[in-house]
């Protein structure tokens, strides 16, 4: 695993998230569920806790967007780049953006939202790409069954290096 340059991390353990826009490929409640489960991948192994907020600004703001979407890192249409996220910090820091030109899915092997979101939230929390094949933070997308997903050891070690272990 690798942490982001300068090893940025959140100075608090209670983080908020907000879903600003949705894909039309999946029912909204399934997007909500995929995002919640993707955050739980990380909160299950660290002291971090996530709470959804609606009105005010959140630490992690999530949106689906196409092409140029205001952050200087335009998406590239179907295929190629699926999503990106910003490391811990104020403003855009922590935010995760998903390419709305992809065909998103929560059940089959089209681009699985839960898997991509879990990867992106790794960046939101301070992890960089890992060159360990099979790690969640490996940069290339590969499908694995979300129902039986278990955070690989490489990622668990990385996130626990930043935030410590979950107390029992």
């Amino acid at each position, binding site marked *: 695993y690798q942490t*982001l*340059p300068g090893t940025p991390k959140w100075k608090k353990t209670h983080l908020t998230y907000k879903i600003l826009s949705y894909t039309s490929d999946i029912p909204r409640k399934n997007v909500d569920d995929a995002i919640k489960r993707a955050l739980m991948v990380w909160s299950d192994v660290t002291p971090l806790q996530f709470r959804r907020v609606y009105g005010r600004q959140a630490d992690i703001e999530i949106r689906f967007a196409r092409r140029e979407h205001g952050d200087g*890192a335009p*998406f590239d249409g179907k*295929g*190629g*780049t*699926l*999503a*990106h*996220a910003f490391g811990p910090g104020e403003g855009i820091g922590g935010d995760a953006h998903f*390419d709305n030109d*992809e065909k998103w899915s929560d059940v089959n092997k089209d*681009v699985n939202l839960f898997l*991509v979101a879990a*990867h*992106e939230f790794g*960046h939101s929390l301070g992890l*960089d*790409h890992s*060159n360990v*094949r099979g790690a969640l933070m490996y*940069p*290339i*997308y590969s499908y694995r069954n979300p129902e039986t997903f278990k955070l690989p050891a490489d990622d668990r070690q990385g996130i626990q290096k930043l935030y410590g272990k979950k107390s029992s």
Partner: protein
Amino acid sequence: FPAQLRPESWSSIDLEKVKGYLDKFFPVFSKTQNLSIEERIKEMQKFFHLTVTGKLDTETEEIMKLPRCGMPDISE
């Protein structure tokens, strides 16, 4: 059977795509760092544990086509 031929030199489209990929995911940070395209491909091949040839071989090209996260693989 005729072997499938690959041009000896890369077409300008190939080169542009490869450069685009490397600039995005394996950026050069220092202005003084004058790396050739071969050296930059080698860096990418090392990251992905590919055979390090410095050439746009089939496995390298395949990796470049796969769907992925938009964040760089090496960062400053």
